[in-house]
């Protein structure tokens, strides 16, 4: 997929989100949990950026920081030319119309006490102050758009299956006609067959409405399918960014290579030599010095233990943060 090189709709520069670690009766801050530490990326209109990484590496915090569900500690988040971190809450509310989020767990993300109309139509109610009768009709249209029946408008979440609930979550994200949607592991909690349906739905919606996605997942095969570009995250930092094609054809960072090796191949006759990663993932509260990946890396040198790796640009937007990956 070739996209027109337009101005990015979202430009994240040096995003840091730290959580204080408090101890004792006086709740003194004894340290910082660096969930997201100096992350930079951009997304162009209509483009999909995949963000992958293992559990606990800060993907979700990163996503929530962008729409300020979590307050970032530092960095710039430029969305449609406005710095999300600096605008007041009232203006932020307006900006939220254009950036929406689809959550991972379709059971937790829908309010069990509210009907589908109230859930999906909430944004319309807040931003456009329409009467409920009109909202109900629009919610019906949205439900049809995500492949549900419009007769569901008066139902409650507990009457639906996981896949259907996720469709309701998608309808909610679509309601305000956003330009950018964050899919925070939007398919991870679903069955594989349902995953395929939801991903196809997301792709169809993108081609019809042309919004940009930040697609977060821990499953590389899912990300490969939907993304134009992919960023790989490890312990709060991005270690490699490339177009989807480049990354899968020619991964450079040892972590990316290990991740790709871990993807199961649906072929029982093929015996693949799996290079397993050794060692434990360090905690975010006490990060190793130098390159964060060095305790588990096979190619580490003395330099890796001391210095943070620089960005190495391999052309065509392929950037890798590694001492040993220089050409």
């Amino acid at each position, binding site marked *: 997929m070739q996209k027109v090189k337009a101005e990015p709709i979202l430009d994240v520069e040096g995003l840091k989100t730290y959580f204080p670690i408090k101890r004792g009766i006086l709740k003194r801050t004894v340290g910082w949990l660096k969930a997201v530490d100096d992350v930079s990326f951009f997304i162009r209109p209509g483009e999909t950026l995949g963000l992958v990484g293992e559990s606990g590496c800060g993907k979700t915090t990163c996503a929530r920081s962008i729409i300020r569900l979590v307050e970032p500690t530092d960095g710039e988040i430029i969305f449609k030319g406005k710095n999300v971190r600096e605008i007041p809450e009232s203006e932020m509310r307006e900006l939220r119309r254009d950036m929406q989020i689809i959550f991972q767990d379709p059971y937790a993300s829908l309010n069990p006490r509210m009907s589908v109309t109230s859930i999906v139509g909430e944004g319309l109610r807040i931003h456009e102050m329409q009467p409920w009768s009109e909202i109900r009709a629009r919610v019906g249209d949205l439900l049809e758009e995500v492949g549900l029946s419009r007769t569901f408008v008066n139902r409650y979440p507990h*009457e639906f299956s996981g896949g259907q609930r996720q469709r309701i979550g998608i309808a909610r994200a679509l309601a305000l006609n956003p330009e950018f949607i964050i899919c925070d592991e939007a398919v991870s909690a679903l069955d594989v067959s349902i995953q395929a349906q939801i991903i196809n739905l997301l792709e169809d919606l993108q081609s019809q409405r042309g919004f940009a996605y930040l697609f977060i997942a821990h499953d590389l095969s899912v990300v490969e399918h939907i993304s134009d570009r992919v960023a790989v995250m490890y312990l709060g930092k991005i270690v490699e960014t490339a177009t989807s094609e480049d990354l899968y054809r020619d991964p450079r960072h040892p972590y990316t290579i290990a991740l790709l090796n871990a993807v199961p191949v649906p072929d029982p006759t093929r015996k693949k030599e799996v290079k397993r990663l050794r060692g434990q993932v360090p905690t975010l509260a006490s990060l190793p010095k130098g390159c964060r990946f060095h305790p588990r890396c096979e190619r580490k040198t003395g330099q890796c233990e001391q210095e943070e790796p620089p960005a190495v640009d391999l052309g065509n937007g392929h950037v890798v943060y590694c001492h040993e990956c220089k050409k």
Partner: protein
Amino acid sequence: MDEEKNTQPVTQEVEAKPGRSLWGDAFHRLRKDKFAVMSFVIIVIYLFVAILSGLDWIAYNYDKQHFKRDKNGKETTELDDYSKPSLGHWRKTDVPGRDVYIPGHLLGTDVQGRDVFQRVVQGTWISLYVALIMSMIYIVIAVFLGALAGYFGGWVDDLIQWFYQTTASIPGLLLIIALTFVLGKGLGNVAIALGVVGWVGLCRLMRAEFLKHKGRDYVLAARAQGAGSFRIMFRHILPNTFHIVIISFSLGFVNAIMGEVTLTFIGLGAKPEQPSWGRMISDARAELARDPAVWWPIVGATTGMFIVCLAFNILGDALRDALDPKLKE
């Protein structure tokens, strides 16, 4: 994945009928519980009786004094004091075939010849009136402060916590007595004092619930939609925690009724002429010491109180079972 482009989901999975909310669901479960239904019916009867007597449609002559009757059934000028409960009886008169029916007092009469049963009925109104005012006051305070503390955290939480810890550390009865001295005696003031003192328990529960819910995905989703704090607190989180308020209301009602009785017993609540259950129980101190003991006023008042308290307790437990999302079968 491309081959099986299936954007048409199985929509037949749930047939098109109007949805049933979780409240509807809980109501359905509650209806299956026989004891709960019975308790509910009893409470409704009490409410009905209370309203009717409050409007003076029944038991309006609870303070009417009764006079002794002569052997012809004519009222004398002598005041009837204590008389035992009776259903009434026919009395022979001098004229044969013209016997008169003397209506009895179902629960006897008190020291001034007033019908105890009518006073018990009138007491229903007083009790429910006190309980209702108290509940309204403490529920509003508890929900509002609990919601603020749990949702906003930080210094708001610290302040509210300090406030309820201080309130809780003063013995409740003392605080109520102090408040009624400030506000003055009387039932309305007793109700206010009970409400002002009784909010701490529910407030703690609400704070914990809001704390738990504010990080949930559905709340984040609402914020992502642009919902403000108050919309999230009262439109999103409150309905999800409201079952606690309902249960607390049902069980707290009992405390209110008994609180009124206790305070009247120590002389702070109802005035002597008011027919409250507490007043009747208070008077029983002297009555039970008599020989033969006058037992009917206290039996009437405590039975009236016992049945409604038991009904509220059973209903409260049934509500807890029906409304708790974790106990769903």
